[in-house]
Every structure is written in structure tokens, then in C-alpha cells.
């Protein structure tokens, strides 16, 4: 990608976000009795206190994990939406280790997270295997597996880990050794953020610098070409989704051990779907995932604060998210300008063009 094209992509992304925010503005203007106050809370609320900004960073961590998970799978051209279920079932697996094992402090969370990652990778691997072996659509089967993961996970909690004295449908408390230590005082930001940062770098290196990552990219760009050039695309299809599931499961484990003291989710947390938006905003590039995750987390927390202090419910973020997905993924959005750019470049450097 040339520099101009990169600038163009930034402009395009910004414009899409701007349009989505404008839609948000119009909605708030129509809905709210005091739109000025509501908008202020929405846009600036996350910055108004240390705690609120901490919330943004806390939310950014799981979004980074699912964002990278989806990026890897989408780069391979696999529409596996199992990150949602992988995140959930990974968290259940981590809860199992955190409750039932007795291990020394540092080892305990590591074992829990590894087990969560393993379960997540198996989970996302099933639709991949079904696809490679029999051609079942990974999209449909991963969607079904999300529901299966949800109910199966609740079953495990309810029958094997449920704390009968707690009153609600929650698990036993985790062993203190399993809980991830907090990194920033007065927030719930755990050392999980360090794992997230490491993951970003590793995922980038993996995609950019290894043969495996290259095969994923090539298969996603053109599966037929990859097959004819000797790449075993079936194995790419499988390992890309296994890796995606592993990252999602790891994210679920870290989220649970970093933010909670027992398992208490009653719904799928929805981070898998958010990962789709993060991945699209980041153009499937792991390095950009944290930026996209920060943006989405900021929107989310802003909307939460707004709904707490004003009359606008926070679900309107979903409308912004949908708009952003559509506009950024829209290849004809600003396509004319892209053509002009490419044309200009081609005509400006007719001599050096051949060398490139």
C-alpha cells in the first residue's frame, strides 16, 4: 500500500465514523429532552473521571482479544462467528481450573488461561473440521455452536460449580491464587492487559513474518490460487480457526480471572460480535486492533454513562456499530476517489512504474 492509499484509508475510516456519529447525534436530538447534556455525557463521560476512563481500558482488553481472533479467521476468509462462544466456553474452562485446582499463585492463572485457550481452540476448530471434511458452512455451524456453548456452559456451572449459598446462579468463588493481580490501583485493569499487548505483537509478527501467517493471508485472498501454488488450504482453514478460537478462549479466561471473583454471566457477553467490528475497523491488522478496541470501548462506556444520567438508552450504540461496519466494509464507499488516486499515481510516475 502506498502512502497516499494509507492516508486515503484513514480518511475513509474517519469519514465512516463521522457519519455514524452524526446519525447518533440525530438520534439523541430526536429522542432526548436534554440532548446537549446527553451528548456531553456520551462523548466526554469516559474522560470525566479516573474510574470512567479505567472502565474504557477494562473493556478494551476483551475486545482486543476477540478482535484479533476474528481478524485471524477473517483474514483466512473464514466467516467463523464462534469467537462469541469460544470466549464464553473458555471462561467456563478457566473458572473450572480456578475453582477446583490448588496451585501456587503465578502458575494457577497460567494453567487456567491455558486450559481456557485450549477449550476455545477446540470449540472453534469443530466448525472448521466440519467444513473441511464435508463442506458444512462454518458460518451456520459456528452460530449454532455459540448457542450450544452457552447452554452447555450454563449446565456445567449449574450442576458442577454452583455455589448453593450464593442465592443467584453463580459459581463458587475462585481460589485467590487464580485471580489475576490488578495492575492499576482503583480500577479493575489486571495484568491481562500485558497479555493483550503481547498478543498484539505476536499476532502481528505471526501474520507478517511467518510462513503460517503468509499462508493464511494467501488463502484468504485467493483460495484457488493458493491451492494451485501448493498450499494445503484445508489445513490453513483449520489452523486459522483453531488459532482464532484459542485467542477467543484466552480472552474469556483473562476477562473472567481479571475482572471477577466468581462466574456470574447469565448471557453471552457479546464480545464475539464486537470483535467483528473491531476487526473490520482494524482492517484485520493486529497492530490496529487495540486502536479499534479503544474506540469501541470508548463508545460503549460513553453510552453506558449517558444512559445512566439521561433518558437515552445505551442500546443505540448498536445502530452506530452497524453503520460503521457497513460503511467501512463498503467497497464502493468513496470508490471514485480511490480510483482517482490510483489513476493519478499511475500517470504521474510512468517511468518508475515498471520497476515496482
Amino acid at each position, binding site marked *: 500500500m502506498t502512502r497516499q492509499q494509507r492516508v486515503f484509508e484513514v480518511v475513509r475510516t474517519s469519514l465512516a465514523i463521522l457519519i455514524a456519529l452524526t446519525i447518533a447525534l440525530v438520534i439523541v436530538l430526536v429522542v432526548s429532552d436534554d440532548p446537549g447534556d446527553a451528548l456531553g455525557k456520551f462523548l466526554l463521560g469516559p474522560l470525566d473521571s479516573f474510574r470512567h476512563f479505567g472502565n474504557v481500558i477494562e473493556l478494551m482488553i476483551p475486545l482486543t482479544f476477540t478482535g484479533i481472533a476474528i481478524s485471524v479467521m477473517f483474514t483466512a476468509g473464514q*466467516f467463523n462467528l464462534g469467537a462469541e462462544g469460544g470466549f464464553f466456553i473458555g471462561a467456563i474452562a478457566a473458572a473450572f481450573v480456578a475453582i477446583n485446582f490448588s496451585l501456587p499463585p503465578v502458575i494457577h492463572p497460567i494453567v487456567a488461561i491455558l486450559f481456557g485457550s485450549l477449550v476455545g481452540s477446540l470449540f472453534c476448530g469443530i466448525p472448521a473440521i466440519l467444513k473441511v471434511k464435508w463442506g458444512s458452512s462454518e458460518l451456520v455451524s459456528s452460530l449454532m455452536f455459540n448457542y450450544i456453548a452457552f447452554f452447555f456452559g450454563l449446565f456445567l456451572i449449574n450442576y458442577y460449580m454452583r455455589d448453593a449459598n450464593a442465592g443467584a446462579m453463580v459459581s463458587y468463588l475462585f481460589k485467590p491464587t487464580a485471580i489475576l493481580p490488578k495492575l492499576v490501583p482503583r480500577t479493575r485493569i489486571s495484568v491481562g492487559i500485558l497479555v493483550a499487548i503481547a498478543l498484539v505483537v505476536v499476532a502481528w509478527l505471526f501474520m507478517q513474518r511467518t510462513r503460517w501467517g503468509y499462508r493464511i493471508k494467501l488463502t484468504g485472498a485467493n483460495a484457488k490460487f493458493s491451492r494451485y501454488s501448493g498450499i494445503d488450504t484445508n489445513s490453513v482453514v483449520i489452523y486459522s480457526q483453531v488459532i482464532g478460537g484459542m485467542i477467543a478462549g484466552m480472552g474469556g479466561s483473562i476477562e473472567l480471572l481479571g475482572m471477577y471473583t466468581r462466574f456470574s454471566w447469565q448471557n453471552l457477553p457479546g464480545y464475539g460480535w464486537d470483535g467483528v467490528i473491531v476487526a473490520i475497523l482494524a482492517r484485520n491488522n493486529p497492530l490496529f486492533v487495540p486502536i479499534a478496541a479503544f474506540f469501541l470501548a470508548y463508545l460503549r462506556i460513553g453510552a453506558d454513562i449517558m444512559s445512566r444520567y439521561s433518558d437515552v438508552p445505551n442500546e443505540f450504540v448498536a445502530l452506530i456499530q452497524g453503520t460503521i*461496519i457497513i460503511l467501512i466494509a463498503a467497497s464502493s464507499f468513496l470508490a471514485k476517489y480511490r480510483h482517482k488516486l490510483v489513476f493519478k499515481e499511475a500517470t504521474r510516475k510512468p517511468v518508475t512504474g515498471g520497476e515496482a
Partner: protein
Amino acid sequence: MNQVFSLIFAPEFGYSVLRVTTPIMFATLGALISDKAGVMNIALEGIMLISALTGVVFSALTGSSGVGLLAAVLAGGLAGLFLAYCALKLKTDIILSGIALNLMASGGTVFALFLIAGDKGISSSLASKVLPKLTIPGISSIPVLGTMLSGHNVLTYVAFLMVAATFVFLYRTPLGLRIRAVGENPNAAASVGIGVTKIQYLALTLSGMMAGFGGAYMSMGYVSWFSKNMTAGRGFIAMAAEAMGGATPLGSMLTSLLFGFFDALSNTLQLMKIPSEFVNMLPYAATVIGLVLYTVQKTRKERLARESAGAAPAVTGATAGKKE
């Protein structure tokens, strides 16, 4: 076990199968129409939600379930049109467009519900109407069959009529032929003067309207209210049912009934001492298993076809070699 069988073989169970099949069948027909035009509508789930809420709101506003139904179907058509606009005009990948529409529907319906009914979970504060149930004279007096087939919501009968209507539309009308031609080979269709994009717009709109019927049934027949994410994956199940039904109206009907059976079974089993989580899992697990079984036999059939087709030239090649 005996208890399970006595529950399943009761005529009431047959009734409940038809009852829970209805929304899946509408959505499956929606999946079928768009698939025939070569466009994948994964937004059926979200469209059903939008229509379910629209139906409740309009029936409460006007006091008429008929107006509610009309509004729901129109809303479904508009949502389908919106999907078509994103995918065909803005050229957003149709799966991503569908994901976006599903997200917007799932959050947007809660948002709208809160604004209209002041509640984020359920629409019980709205005096919405329910579509009437039909007692079919003649059939209703037959002992077992009457219990199973009569007294359903009017949309349940419409769903079965829609199967026939979809068949006639796709296979016996010029427009249906065009839709199939576009799905089969868009370039060939364009070369004989069919407006591919226009046909796909139409197919997605019709597909949305079909899901609109399903949504209307959910909130004005299956139950008498709208609740958050009430479709619970039926739109996705429908995609599996359509694939498994071999992309034909009759096949779609049969597979919808199959998944409806498991849905009804899970409702029935809740009365028994089986962990409810397992019971809830049943329709989704059955869908995956069904999808896999279908694709297994399909790949086997394709392999056989390939082998028998490949065998013939190989033999002639070998004999030709000997002659030289």
C-alpha cells in the same frame, strides 16, 4: 422413557410441532428465495426481530392485528431492501451487511422498545393484539387429526400455503425463472437481458417480507408480546434448514418441520427431570447434526458422480493408448 413417548405421541405434541415450526418455516422460505437469486441473507434473524416489534407496536397503535401484520411484513421488506442496498449498491460484503443488520436489529429493537414502552425487556405495557386462531370446520371434529391440525394461528396455515406459493412463484412464473437464472449463473442471465441487480434487490426484499411474516407470528401468535432477542437464533436455524432442504420449497418445509420437532421436543422435555440446559440445547444441536448429515451425504453423492464421470474417459484413454 415411556413418559417421553407418551408425550410425543399425544396429538397435542403434533399441534405444538406445527406451532413452533411456523416461524422457522417462514424464515426458511426467506432464506430459500434469496439463495435462489444467489444472495445470502443472514439477516433473517434481525429482520424477524424488527418485524416482531413493528407488529406489536402497530397493532397496539391501531387496535388491529391485521394492520400490525401488514406493518410487520412491510418492515421486513424494507429491512430486506436495506440489506440489498448495502450489499448491491454500497458493495459491502453481504455477510458483513447481514451481521451489521443483525446487530442493529438486536440493539435497535431494545432501544425502540424502551422509547415506546418504557421497558428494555418486554412489551407488556403495550396493548398489542394477537392474530386470530382458525378452527377448520370438518377437520376439527376428526379425533386425533383435528387436535393436531385445527385451531392454529392463521399464520401457521399461511406458512404452509406460502410453501406452495413459493414453489409456484419460483418454478412456474417468468419472474421465478429469472430469479433462478440469476442465482444459477448471473453472467448468463445478464447476457440474455436480465437485470441481475434488480432481481437480487427483489429477492432480498421478498426474503425480508417472508421473515416479516415469521416475526409477526413470533410476537402476535406464538406469544402475545415482544421481548428482547425473542427470535433466539431461529433465523440462523432457518439458514441451516434451507441448506439441508436442498434449496427446494418442499425440502425446506420438511426440514423446518424436523427442526420444529426438536424445538417442540425441547419444550415438552422441560416438564421432565432433565437438566433444562440440555433441553434448551436440543434445537441447535439437532441443527448442527442435521446440517452435517446433509453435507456428508451430499459430498458422497458428488464424489460418486465424479468417479463415475471420471471413470469413462480414463478407460477410453487407456484403450486408445494400447491401440497406438
